[in-house]
């Protein structure tokens, strides 16, 4: 029984692991921290798994536990050397169809996301994952109105950050 549960859980996570990787990318700055956070999220997901009754899709259920771990439970380890393995360059793969200007704009966007606080990052992440306000409010435990207001502020903040950087660069 236990073995079956383990197997089921690991297969599910293997299939949907991208969700966890995306959260790690937003919340960490180097590969070692990424792996650390991924591991902690995996442990927390596994601990909570007996409570998962299949009432939602596994992936939907994951968002909550994974984000909770990233925002609340995870304690960043102090590292001797602060490496930024995947900043604007390695954070994402280049997409061929974009021109240089778009590429530059995108790397500014990703950097701006990195500068946000933990809560704003969660909101942006849920927005990028195409979650609606109801889902966002349920995941974060705030009212839908608050979620909307907060989201608008984050969007404005992001745009402002990008504008100020690009003005400075040109």
């Amino acid at each position: 029984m236990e073995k079956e549960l383990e197997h089921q859980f690991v297969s599910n996570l293997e299939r949907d692991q991208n969700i966890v990787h995306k959260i790690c990318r937003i919340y960490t700055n180097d590969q070692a921290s990424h792996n650390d956070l991924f591991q902690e999220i995996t442990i927390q997901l596994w601990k909570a798994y007996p409570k998962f009754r299949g009432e939602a899709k596994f992936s939907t259920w994951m968002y909550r536990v994974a984000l909770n771990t990233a925002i609340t439970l995870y304690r960043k380890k102090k590292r001797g050397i602060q490496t930024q393995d995947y900043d604007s360059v390695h954070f994402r793969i280049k997409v061929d169809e974009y021109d240089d200007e778009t590429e530059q704009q995108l790397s500014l966007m990703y950097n701006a996301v990195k500068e946000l606080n933990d809560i704003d990052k969660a909101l942006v992440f849920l927005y990028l994952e195409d979650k609606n306000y109801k889902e966002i409010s349920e995941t974060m435990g705030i009212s839908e109105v608050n979620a909307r207001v907060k989201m608008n502020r984050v969007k404005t903040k992001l745009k402002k950050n990008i504008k100020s950087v690009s003005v400075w660069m040109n």
Partner: protein
Amino acid sequence: MDELDLLKKDWNKQQGNYPKLTFDQIYKMIWKRSHSIVKWIFYISLIELLAGTIINIIFSGDEYWQDIEKNGLSEIITGLYVVSYAITFYFIYRFYRNYKRISTTDDASTLMKNILKTRRTVKYYIAYVLISTGVVVVGGLTYMILNHSPTDVDDVSKYTFETLDWLKFIGVTAFVLTVLLGLIWLFYRLLYGILLRRLKKNYIELKKLEV
């Protein structure tokens, strides 16, 4: 195109850009030890909750009891012990209940609230220990001063306090007590601060604008 739409579009194109862990790699991870702050909070709180009891045990040696009995205080002291243990157990029970309530499947706000609540129980306990220690020390000293039996010493005059001595004595006692309790409080705040600084900040940020 809006920058955010562009970002969203690119975000969805990045699917192939993430590490791909195998079944076995993930399987190994589920048996690793968690480093979550909830675990730290649990251990540290447990130590703090037991600290009061441990201090009590250290200080209540045989000699201490003989002294108490000689002075006819055993009933009062036993009563105090019963009350203090009852209070300690109440705190431990509250802590346990709050701790059990912490669940990662709750929404972020509820989870943070429950962690802060669990920790607050321990904070109140520490405050209780510090205040009660202060009260007991002051009470004990007052009793000692008012009731010290002259028969214990040969020359009473040596032990009779002048007003200035009294002031000195009270001053020094108050100072030492304040420094000691203050240090414990500071240490506690430091521990508490380091553990929960980020969580508190996030909780405030999350609850901002909430009506």
